[in-house]
């Protein structure tokens, strides 16, 4: 399909997907609306593929815009780089919509919610397609408003939804304001709003730095970079899971796209730009993974893990910028490819994880890991898909996450710090941060997967899923969504070569070669990865063990034994196993200072006997330290300001009249001067 055709098709499909929920009867609403949204997503993928091939096309929208000087027409013209994000947003949106057909129920399956989902998807598709500031900001706002409506879906059931939505709305509009200011600086300098014109102006100097800071902060808010991440751990758990998947896997990527766009619009800047990105990325990665490791709310954990992964992406971008400035273009290109690989892989595995979490929530009504367990027996599809997603998140071979982090480490290892002291110090530190992040990530997802699926069920609902109150059977679309997203995590890892080459071409960088059918090589740094060979190696190690096991099983069939005298050898009860909280306890101990845990231990004694213990209760509350120390003081100050405003607004009509009177006198005085 040619470029403008694909864009027009996306707009038409969006119109249909937004209208369908209002036109269909209740019974068919979810299948038809979800199907229409999924088609819209696939349309986005098609447009993205066309754009990546350089045939993005140009579509000028006939929007009525006040004819002001310096305002270029509203145009959609996806670049190859935008194409990558179109594919990501479209693919994730389609999968989540498909999953949502079976998953959404209650308010999440209402007309408003499905319509908002289609609008949200359209916003995400228009952002990377926008070719000027105005259309970009319009699409951005569409995305923000529609997602706010979606987060709000369950507000009648859970009161926490409202406060989460409030946080989200405030942060997302903060982001919009910062972007508006940043783009205004750029547009004023370039004399127009088209990205082409702004890029041609090659802004530099203090104005460029101001725009850079504003835009990176604005996009960082959307991307969930620490310390602007506070909306993520609130909004993601409260939104319906397919929406969380779309928000986490696709929407936060628009922040990353924005940072890439910013770098493309500005001339190479001072060294602190790259350094700033690197610091921001490393801080997000570390803080995100640390919070994820100690959280036992499954969706909150995934939200923090999003912060972590975006942190890694921005770290890769920072390394790319830093090395590019230092003249090491070839290594910088590896870092940029790593960033894009991270984007794609995070989109794949976070979709699988959030859909898996949604599936767990759907059948048990629980998202607290401390109350889950044993789901591998009852829900194998969910277990496998979530497991594959977890493997991707922990960068185990041979998933897409592994390929991406391997490339990132190559860039870090091969960066040459001999000429520049700053690079010499930061690259090894960044490497350490990445290593620590990956390690803690492993811990996080071992906890998440093993305790939810392998451990013994810790609650009635977990033990008897599907019978829990208000839960529903898995529909075929949910299983399909889970399987496809899980398979994608592995498939993208196997297709490391073709994927890397395509991403590098879209980003306009070289230095990547395909080796054989699937392998990838970076001649500039002299490294090579062959997924097929890696798999063969893994099989060569695993097959003998499996064979040995099989032989043993035949020779000595397993017998269940009940020990007459237990002495601790009896089969463990759920209370004797690790909980999510106890598994992460050593971490809380080590990082106590930055986690600030509040613990409460109550020991109850039977009456009249202080030596015996009848009951022990333990509870632990972890707070987001950044939220406590940075945001709440601001909130309190705003409230104080609001209280102070009562001096002005006290309900006395005399005072209001006095304001008008003074204003009148002032106007008269000004006029007469």
């Amino acid at each position: 399909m040619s470029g403008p055709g694909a864009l027009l098709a996306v707009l038409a499909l969006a119109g249909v997907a937004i209208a369908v929920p209002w036109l269909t009867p209740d019974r068919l609403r979810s299948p038809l609306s979800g199907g229409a949204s999924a088609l819209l997503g696939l349309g986005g993928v098609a447009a993205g593929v066309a754009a990546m091939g350089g045939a993005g096309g140009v579509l000028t929208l006939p929007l009525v815009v006040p004819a002001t000087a310096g305002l270029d027409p509203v145009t959609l013209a996806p670049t190859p780089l935008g194409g990558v994000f179109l594919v990501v947003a479209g693919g994730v949106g389609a999968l989540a919509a498909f999953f949502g057909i079976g998953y959404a129920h209650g308010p999440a399956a209402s007309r408003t919610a499905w319509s908002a989902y289609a609008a949200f998807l359209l916003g995400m598709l228009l952002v990377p397609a926008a070719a000027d500031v105005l259309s970009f900001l319009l699409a951005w706002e569409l995305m923000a408003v529609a997602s706010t409506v979606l987060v709000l879906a369950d507000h009648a059931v859970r009161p926490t939804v409202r406060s989460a939505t409030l946080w989200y709305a405030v942060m997302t509009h903060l982001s919009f304001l910062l972007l508006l200011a940043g783009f205004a600086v750029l547009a004023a300098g370039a004399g127009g709003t088209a990205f082409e014109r702004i890029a041609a102006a090659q802004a530099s100097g203090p104005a460029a730095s101001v725009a850079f800071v504003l835009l990176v902060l604005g996009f960082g808010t959307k991307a969930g970079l620490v310390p602007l991440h506070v909306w993520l751990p609130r909004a993601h758990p409260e939104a319906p899971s397919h929406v969380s998947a779309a928000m986490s896997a696709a929407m936060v990527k628009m922040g990353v796209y924005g940072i890439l766009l910013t770098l493309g619009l500005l001339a190479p800047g001072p060294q602190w730009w790259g350094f700033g990105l690197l610091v921001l990325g490393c801080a997000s990665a570390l803080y995100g993974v640390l919070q994820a490791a100690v959280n036992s709310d499954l969706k909150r954990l995934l939200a923090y893990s999003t912060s972590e992964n975006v942190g890694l992406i921005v770290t890769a971008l920072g390394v790319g910028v830093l090395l590019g400035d230092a003249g090491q273009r070839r290594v910088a290109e590896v870092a940029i490819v790593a960033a894009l690989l991270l984007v794609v892989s995070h989109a794949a595995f976070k979709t699988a994880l959030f859909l898996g979490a949604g599936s767990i929530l759907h059948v048990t009504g629980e998202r607290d890991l401390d109350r889950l367990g044993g789901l591998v027996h009852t829900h194998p599809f969910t277990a496998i898909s979530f497991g594959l997603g977890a493997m991707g998140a922990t960068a185990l071979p041979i998933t897409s996450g592994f390929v991406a982090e391997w490339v990132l480490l190559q860039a870090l290892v091969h960066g040459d710090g001999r000429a520049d002291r700053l690079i010499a110090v930061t690259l090894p530190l960044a490497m350490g941060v990445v290593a620590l992040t990956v390690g803690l990530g492993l811990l996080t997802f071992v906890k998440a997967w093993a305790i939810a699926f392998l451990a013994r069920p810790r609650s009635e609902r977990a033990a008897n899923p599907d019978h829990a109150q208000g839960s529903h059977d898995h529909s075929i679309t949910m299983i399909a969504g889970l399987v496809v997203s899980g398979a994608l995590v592995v498939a993208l890892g196997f297709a490391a070569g073709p994927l890397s080459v395509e991403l590098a071409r879209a980003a306009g960088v070289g230095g990547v070669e395909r080796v054989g059918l699937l392998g990838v090589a970076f001649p500039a740094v002299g490294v090579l990865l062959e997924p097929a060979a890696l798999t063969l190696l893994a099989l060569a190690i695993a097959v003998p063990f499996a064979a040995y096991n099989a032989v043993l099983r035949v020779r000595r069939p397993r017998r269940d034994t009940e020990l007459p005298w237990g002495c601790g050898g009896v089969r463990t009860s759920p209370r004797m196993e690790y909980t999510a909280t106890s598994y992460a306890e050593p971490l809380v101990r080590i990082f106590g200072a930055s986690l600030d845990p509040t613990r409460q231990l109550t020991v109850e004694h039977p009456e009249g006997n202080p030596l015996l213990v009848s009951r022990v209760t333990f509870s632990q509350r972890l707070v987001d330290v950044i939220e406590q120390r940075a945001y709440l003081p601001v909130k309190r100050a705003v409230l104080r300001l609001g209280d102070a405003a009562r001096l002005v607004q006290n309900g006395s009509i005399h005072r209001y009249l006095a304001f008008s009177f003074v204003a009148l006198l002032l106007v008269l005085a000004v006029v007469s001067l």
Partner: protein
Amino acid sequence: MSHDLAAQLIALTTGLLLLTAVQQLWLRSVLGSVALLVVQGAALAGLVATIAVAEQEWEALAMAVVILALKAGFLPWALARTATLTRVHDGLDPGARPASGLLLAVLLTTVAYVVSQPLIGPNPTDAARAVPVGIALVLLGFLILLTRHIAVSQLVGFLVLDNGIAATGFLVSGGLPLTTEIGVLFDVLLVVLILRVLTVRMVRLTGGTSLPELRELRD
């Protein structure tokens, strides 16, 4: 009408306008300031009639009649009736402070003279020369509105303010188009009638319309 006569009549009517406004600021009696409104409305009607005859705009003459009927007749009557209905206690407004009121009146009138210079221009007509009175009336009306506590006396302030606006309009431009003037008049009429109904109801509900007692904000 001779030029001199017109000039003297304008001076007389605007003088009356200013005098009544200042007196209203000075008086504490609610009914007294309502009575002064009659004089003020008549003066305004006279001013409009004078300008109409002097500039031979006969439409404005009709306007003068309407103004006389409404501002010197109906509105003061409606206010007086409201005052009786609501049984304004002892007929005095606790917000009125004669001494400081007069002082402020002097100040505001001076301000009006100073700020109206640009409106008058270098070669003023007789009417334009009196523009400061109109503006002073606006400011004094505002001051009454601002300081009085009882609803009826606030309405008096509102009407003085409106008289000021009308006077300024006529003095500057010889009157606005008839439809606009009538529209404004009926707006004022509506405001007064609605507030009258509200005032009566408020008195029934709360036993008074003293504003300091009615200042709790509710969501």
